[in-house]
């Protein structure tokens, strides 16, 4: 079940934020927890839908199979990675992941301009450290998943360059850090969106785009199986 297991564990992650906000017994924290429960639930949907096309192309839920599938496409060139073959899904994944881990354009659960510090207002020292660490672990997790699902994992992307053994770690790490850099970059660049804008964007843009892309991918896989070299197991 590979990928689905990761999805299940991320789905449980929202309780940490909700419980932290609720247990603080503070109205700002409660609103932060409330927002995060609605936000993470909404964006989880788009996040999950953005994976479906990738899974369909690879024909497997195992991350290793998905990475190998990308490495085989187009003779190993990076244009065969899912970030290019599945560009709409990648964009949906990136936006939904940013919102799912509550990074800045979508960090409404914290929103210090209106909610003091949101769900972690009442926590200090070690407890705050735990919350902060969880937030960054979340960010690293979605960067790693994005690397494996869309950016070709440990493959070099140029035929002839080595991507075996220890060199694989270098490629993989470079891609993960590039994604992390973009997350931090966005934080430094963009202002926070409004809450109704956030919900409207999630439900009226990301989810329909992801659903339409699933249909397109399914049609492509069914009608032109040779084009994508769909693995048949």
């Amino acid at each position: 079940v590979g990928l689905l297991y990761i999805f299940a564990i991320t789905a449980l992650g929202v309780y940490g934020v909700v419980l932290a906000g609720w247990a603080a017994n503070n109205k700002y924290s409660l609103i932060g927890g409330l927002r995060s429960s609605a936000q993470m639930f909404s964006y989880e949907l788009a996040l999950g839908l953005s994976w479906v096309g990738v899974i369909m192309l690879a024909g497997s839920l195992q991350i290793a199979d998905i990475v190998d599938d990308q490495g085989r496409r187009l003779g190993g060139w990076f244009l065969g990675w899912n970030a290019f073959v599945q560009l709409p899904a990648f964009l949906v994944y990136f936006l939904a992941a940013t919102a799912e881990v509550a990074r800045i354009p979508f960090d409404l659960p914290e929103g210090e301009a209106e909610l003091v510090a949101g769900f972690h207002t009442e926590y200090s020292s070690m407890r705050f450290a735990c919350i902060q660490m969880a937030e960054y672990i979340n960010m690293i997790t979605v960067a790693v998943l994005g690397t494996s699902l869309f950016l070709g994992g440990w493959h070099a992307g140029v035929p002839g360059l080595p991507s075996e053994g220890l060199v694989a770690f270098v490629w993989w790490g470079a891609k993960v850090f590039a994604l992390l850099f973009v997350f931090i970059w966005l934080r430094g660049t963009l202002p926070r969106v409004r809450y109704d804008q956030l919900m409207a964007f999630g439900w009226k843009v990301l989810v329909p785009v992801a659903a339409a892309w699933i249909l397109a991918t399914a049609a492509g896989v069914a009608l032109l199986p040779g084009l994508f070299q769909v693995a048949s197991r």
Partner: protein
Amino acid sequence: MDAILFYVFAAIAVASALVVVGQRNPMYSAFALIVTLCSLSVIFGLLGSPFIAVLQVIVYAGAIMVLFLFVLMLLNVKKEEDRPVGGGRTLRGVALALVTLLVLQAGTVLLRWEAVPAAGFDASTRRMAQVLFSPHFLYAFEATSILILAALVGAIALARKEP
């Protein structure tokens, strides 16, 4: 090993289910329900069906319970007033639960259900999809999805304010 795990998680499931019913604070009930659902998922996993186990966590613990919590927190439900426990109400509840248990047990015995899945039973993701989309279940499956869609539209129609 499987038997130990089964009994541990079955006990957790039953205990947290009791907490769901017994708690006066709806928030605590919701949290206990999450624990119940997660231990049920472990039992599905032990039955050799990791796909159902993971779906159980994603759909129920991950999505439905988050909505429950959202509504509870949005409406700011207070602790239920203490009603006198015991007396006729509790007795009737316990009696109803016992009758249900008896009926289920009688059904199991009369229909001779196998507790152990038949040999060659395969509940992998691929097999699940093949069974679900086989002609045998396809219409029921699609009808369920239309039913859910109808419920969704109905809920929106009921909740919408007249313009």
